């Protein structure tokens, strides 16, 4: 009977917490969320953020990496620099850096690797004048691949940091 009571309380607690859950936002394209540019998302701030500015949409929001590395090469530095310049010019806007890894190796190590990549981009942005408290880093490890293949062309796309501009 005690067990039933516990189960009953458990159900009540669940029901109490279940009321008014947030729905999941529609996703706009592989691996991207509604708030990121691409096709129309609910909160498509990208148009406002970059209207006609020097930073391109979609392809330029990602920084890519070599396997098991968080080093940012020349070409990718330029992408980060463009975003850093934008952020310096628009002080109110926060930015989220979302780190990812390809599927090879172990999941938890990849979670850490994704974070290391996000923090590398954050560090570069700070060196370029962006205040640290505007930057949030998060890692999804290998859990949200852009490309689902099991080959280098997919893996290369998945080793990335996404630069995201709206609050989740």
């Amino acid at each position, binding site marked *: 009977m005690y*067990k039933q009571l*516990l*189960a009953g309380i*458990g*159900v009540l*607690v*669940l*029901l109490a*917490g*279940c009321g*008014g*859950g*947030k729905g*999941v936002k529609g*996703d*706009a*394209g*592989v*691996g*991207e*969320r509604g708030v990121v540019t691409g096709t129309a998302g609910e909160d498509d701030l990208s148009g406002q953020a970059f209207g006609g500015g020097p930073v391109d949409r979609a392809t330029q929001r990602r920084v890519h990496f070599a396997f*098991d590395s968080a080093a940012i090469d020349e070409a990718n530095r330029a992408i980060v620099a463009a975003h850093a310049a934008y952020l310096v010019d628009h002080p109110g806007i926060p930015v989220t850096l979302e780190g990812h890894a390809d*599927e*090879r*190796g*172990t*999941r*938890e*190590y990849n*979670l*850490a*690797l994704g*974070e*290391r990549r996000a*923090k590398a981009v954050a560090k570069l942005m700070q060196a370029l004048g962006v205040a640290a408290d505007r930057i949030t*880093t*998060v*890692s*999804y*490890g290998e*859990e*949200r691949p852009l490309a*689902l293949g*099991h080959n280098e062309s997919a893996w290369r796309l998945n080793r990335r940091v996404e630069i995201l501009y709206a609050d*989740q």
Partner: protein
Amino acid sequence: MMKRSWCIALLGLLAAGPARAVLTIEITQGVEAGTPVAVVPFGWEGEAPPPADIAAIVRSDLARSGRLAPMDPKDFLSRPHQQSEIRFKDWRLIKAEALAVGRLRALGGDRYRVQFQLFDVFKGSQLAGYRYTVRADQLRRVAHQISDIIYEKLTGEPGAFDTRIAYVTVQRRSPGQSRYLLRVADSDGYGPVTVLDSHEPILSPAWSPDGKRLAYVSFEHRRPMVYVQTLATGERRRVADYLGINSAPAWSPNGRQLALVLSRDGNPEIYVLDLRSRSLRRLTRHLAIDTEPVWSPDGRYIVFTSDRAGGPQLYRVPARGGTPERLTFDGRYNARASFSPDGKRLAFIRGEGNRFQVALLHLASGAVQVLTGGFLDESPSFAPNGRMILYATEQGGRGVLAAVSADGRVQQRLTYTEGDVREPAWSPFNRRL
């Protein structure tokens, strides 16, 4: 605020799942000369079919062991259900070495009696005899316990048939939309129950030593946090939600502490959380990635993955604190250790070129033995009898689970019918009925 989707799934946990296998197991490589065991269909007194075919479940278990060879009932010359009905020459004639017989009887009011005996055919003597009184929904477990008894009597080692597995499944609905389920099923794939249902990733399920709780990592708040959930009630508690990564939970052998990975102090480090007092103790201090902690069965050490030497390698540190000692030296990628129950070996993932395979490290000698032939193997988990290792791999573009015996000779594949499956964790031994 909690999401509605997972709430509904948790409420569903209170009802038992359907008794069908959504995980199908095939033996992809077995041992040639398994001991021939005759498991006779159990006697049943009743007009309706019996609620469980115990002998069939036992035969299926023994076949999965790769070491015993259950014989085809079509070859049996007689079908005894108890000792007085056995003519041992019938069994010597067909070259059975062991004989299992039994009976199932309905006692009324959802109570069933199972009687089972195991015999040595050559000597004509009884090796084991048991009687159970259980409900219909417990009959599969009785069958698995009978398999464990037969396995132990014939091999000298405990069986692991009466166990469960936890695993995560992923169904990709549309690009960018996935559904993740954390599930628990019997280790033969039957009776899966959903523990968590989410639109965000779930990682690293870990069984408490008493088999009653699962710790896991959930991204339901858009970043990784560690939860502990009691299976019987569905009650869950968030135990780590610090800034940065909260992940890789690993239970201490006494069930009172969790080793965790937290990056709250700047980079991923190993911490030990006391579940009762909630006190946190830091175990590693290094700029490198330190992750994937696992406790030795005697509770004295924690083995973890670190890339402090340039790439991921396995290290061991006293659980009370100290200087980590490197364990792996061969190869550029050695990670994600799982201890054998006797504490003498580690199953882990070894990367070589583009291949990632399950390997065994013998701690005393340092010898490494590669066990699997896959390309994207991950998450090795030892069975509680130390004989089999469950892991995740990729087959034909899908995530599947596989099992390999600790000597590499027996291989199985477990395919989930409804999507990709990954992150397996083998439960401790179930407590006896």
